[in-house]
Each structure stands twice: as structure tokens, then as C-alpha cells.
């Protein structure tokens, strides 16, 4: 005999899996958009833009699922926190997807055979790898209700922020070549997108802590430097 409300908890688990699997889609999109930046692959970039529909579709599905669950099951306590957190999480997934699209849209604009600065490109690739690992870790933290892993995301995010600043500095010093300068400007925008992706993973980390402890504390991130917000 199943425990009472078995069906409800099954549905909740399925909804969570659906939302978190969206993060896998984000990783896919991220990989491809970064590849298209590195190799100036306009076709690949086009695919990234088109595939964002999948992420948007998932957002709508999860959103509908949450509304349905709220209306019909009246979740409380831990269940309620999970449902509320999933709303945030799927929103983050959708935003991250949008950031990937933004990156991809910069590819044709930055020119077909534009000159590149190796240092900047390296930094972008490092940022990309970091962002990717953050997304993966965010999924792991939330699914495993692991507050330590969630906490750790803040540390990683600080590295992304540092790289962002470094790219900006490099871009400013890049020299007089007009084409190069233009390309560097676009790279600043790409870095910004990646930095935003990092911020979203920190959001997911905050939601993880909320689900586990019932407390919502803002982690240190770009808008909230570590000196002013002491994480618990």
C-alpha cells in the first residue's frame, strides 16, 4: 500500500526532474554557443537560436505544472518550498537559455574573418568552462539538496566575475586596430552574458538553501559583494 498522497509526491518529483533537466539543455546550448564564438560558426549559432524554443517550451510546461499542482494539491511546508523554488529555477533556466541566444546572436555581428586577441579568447573560453561547471553543479546541488555544494557556487562565481573584469580591461587595452577593437567590444558583451549565467546559477543555489532550511538569504554576487552579505 502506498503512503498517502503518493500520486502527488510522484507528480512533484516528476516536475522537479523536468525543471532540472532544463539545465542539461542549457549546458548544451552553452557549449554550442561558445563553439560558435570560437570558430565564428554562423550556422551553429543559428541552430542555438532556433533551439531556444525547446527551453521556452519547457518553461511553459513546468510553469503550467506548478500552477496545476498548487490549485489541486495545496502543498504545504517542504512541498510548498519546493514548488516555490521550482518557479524560480525554471525562470533561471529560461533566462540562461536567453543568454546563450544572446551569445549566439553576436557571432554574425562580430564579423566573418575578424582578427582575434588570443588572451581575450582564452579568457572567454575559461569563463565558458566555468559557467558550464556552475550550471552542472547547480543542478547537482538542487537535486541532492546539498547546501555545501550550493555555497561553493558562490566561490566559483567570484572567479567568473574576476574573468569578466579581466576581459574588460584587456579589451580596453587591445590597441588601435578598428576591426580588432570592434571584435573586442563584442567579446565584452559575450563575457557579460556568461557572467549573467553565473548569477543565475547562484540564484538556483539560493533556492536550494531555501528549500532545505526555509530561510532565504542572499548570497554574495555581483550586486551584493561579500563584505555586505555574510552568508550563513
Amino acid at each position, binding site marked *: 500500500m502506498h503512503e498517502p498522497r503518493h500520486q502527488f509526491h510522484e507528480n512533484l518529483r516528476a516536475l522537479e526532474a523536468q525543471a532540472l533537466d532544463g539545465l542539461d539543455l542549457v549546458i548544451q546550448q552553452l557549449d554550442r554557443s561558445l563553439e560558435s564564438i570560437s570558430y565564428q560558426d554562423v550556422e551553429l549559432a543559428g541552430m542555438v537560436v532556433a533551439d531556444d524554443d525547446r527551453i521556452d517550451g519547457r518553461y511553459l510546461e513546468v510553469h503550467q505544472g506548478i500552477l496545476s499542482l498548487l490549485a489541486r494539491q495545496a502543498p504545504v511546508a517542504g512541498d510548498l*518550498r519546493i514548488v516555490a523554488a521550482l518557479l524560480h529555477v525554471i525562470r533561471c533556466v529560461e533566462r540562461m537559455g536567453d543568454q546563450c541566444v544572446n551569445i549566439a546572436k553576436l557571432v554574425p555581428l562580430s564579423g566573418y574573418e575578424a582578427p582575434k586577441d588570443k588572451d581575450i579568447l582564452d579568457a572567454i573560453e575559461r569563463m565558458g568552462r566555468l559557467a558550464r561547471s556552475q550550471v552542472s553543479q547547480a543542478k547537482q546541488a538542487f537535486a541532492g539538496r546539498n547546501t555545501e555544494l550550493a555555497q561553493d557556487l558562490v566561490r566559483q562565481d567570484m572567479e567568473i566575475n574576476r574573468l569578466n573584469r579581466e576581459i574588460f580591461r584587456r579589451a580596453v587595452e587591445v590597441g588601435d586596430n578598428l576591426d580588432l577593437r570592434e571584435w573586442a567590444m563584442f567579446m565584452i558583451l559575450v563575457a557579460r552574458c556568461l557572467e549573467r549565467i553565473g548569477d543565475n546559477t547562484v540564484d538556483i543555489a539560493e533556492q536550494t538553501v531555501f528549500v532545505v532550511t526555509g530561510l532565504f538569504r542572499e548570497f554574495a554576487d555581483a550586486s551584493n559583494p561579500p563584505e555586505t552579505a555574510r552568508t550563513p
Partner: protein
Amino acid sequence: MIPPETTSKEQTDMSTGGHSERSQSPLQASASPPPANKTGHGVTVKNLNAYYGSQRSIKDVTIDFPPNEVTAIIGPSGSGKSTVVRCINRMHEEIPGARAEGQVLLDELDVYGDGVDVTAVRRLIGMVFQKPNPFPTMSIFDNVAAGLRLTGTKSSDLRHLVERSLHSVGLWDEVKDRLNEPGIGLSGGQQQRLCIARTVAIEPEVILMDEPASALDPISTLKIEELIDELKERYTIVIVTHNMQQAARVANTTVFMLDGEVIEHDATSKMFTNPTDERTERYVTGKFG
């Protein structure tokens, strides 16, 4: 293609702390200031033990019911929640072989003290039951007046008091033209409101409700809940309910009981968003019951 600005988030502490905080939770939209002058009467149950014969059904229970608030007691069947409430107005001892030990303080007065008149206690602590029980041989008017007549209070003002009672439960307009018709001719929801009118007619200080809406249809249930919300302005209310959503809607604080003991006692919003005890969490999310 500038990505949108990330908005800054307000820091929200969703936990509202222990039940010592009487003010409203930040989650509630309307932040009405607490009333300045509470003329209400609080009840405190202290170290209460209740027995059916030799079997102890309530184990050393201590609960504080704040004045002019609604406190709900939830828990699975057999948790002792109805017994606690029946000990407050000393109805428990009407069952053959049943007894209670401990203190029940109405303000400073111990209801179980020596020489205390049980019937006087019950005039101060009224009770509404699960199944509406208007007196079948009496008219609507007589039912409301029954409390006054049964307690020997001769009142030339009976008509006025009955009218006032019926107004306070929102029944006046529905019955004002048929006060002499039998009380049992009303619908279930109306009958329950009639019983509440009967209880408030003698102007108690506390109203105990033992699953008052569980025998009613959903619309009547909501009307009763609204009534409870209004009544708490003048009375202290304790409600036993097995319907958690009802407790969530109606009560300021909630007590969770299990096997005759109090497991958790906290602001309702905390109890249903972030309970402290694992057993409470499992009960309210329906993992057992």
C-alpha cells in the same frame, strides 16, 4: 542585444520565529496593526493529564491560548485533540470513568480548582460541536434563548439578546420572519450557526469548537470560517479540526498533537511553510495521517 538588467532582490526572512511573536507574519498582505486594547481572556492549559479509566490519553500537555485569537489544534485521530478541548470546559468528566488532572487557567482562575462550580465554568467557556445539535422541541427563538433560560437568567430583555445573537452569526436576515418555526427546520449550515448563536447568547469569554464544519457542505464551511474570523474580535477561540486547510485559513496559531502530546505549537504560517519538527512536516504534507 543587451541582456536585461537583473533585478535586485529584497531580503526576505520567511521564518517568523516562535509563537512568542504575536504580530502578523510578513507574508500576509494586509498588515493591520495589533489592536491596542485587548479585553480578551486567555486560557492556559498546564500539565494536563486526562484519563479514560486507567488509560492515559493526554500526557502532560501545556498550551497557551492567547486572548482574542484563534488557535487550531490539528493531529491524526486519537491524538487527543478533542480530549484537550473537552477538558477545558470540563465536559470530559461527564463521560463515565473519565477524569482529568492538572490545571486549566482562565485568566488567573483554575477551572479545576477546589470548590469551583462546573456549570459556572461552562457559562464562561462555551462549546460548539461537530454535528449541529439544536434542541428539536424548540423554535429558533427558543433555541437561541435556551442558553439564557437553562442557566436560570431571567431576562426581560430576551428578545433583544436573541436578536443580537442572531445578528452576530449572520443569521438574523434569514430567520427574522420565522423565529417561531422549529430550529431543526433549518439547513445544516444554518443549524450550526444557530448553535453558535445559542452559545454566544450567554456571552462566554472563550468559545471551543470541536470540528465545527466537518459535517457541513463547502459553502457553509466557508461561512462558518468567516464567522470565526469575526468572532475572534470578542472571544478567544480554540478550534479542533482534522482539515488542515481549514486550520491554515482560520487560525493565528496552530498546535500539532500526536499520541496525546504536543509536538509543535507555532504561528500558522510557520507551521505550514517551515515546521520545525520532522513529525509535523510529515503530517502536514500528508505523508501519514
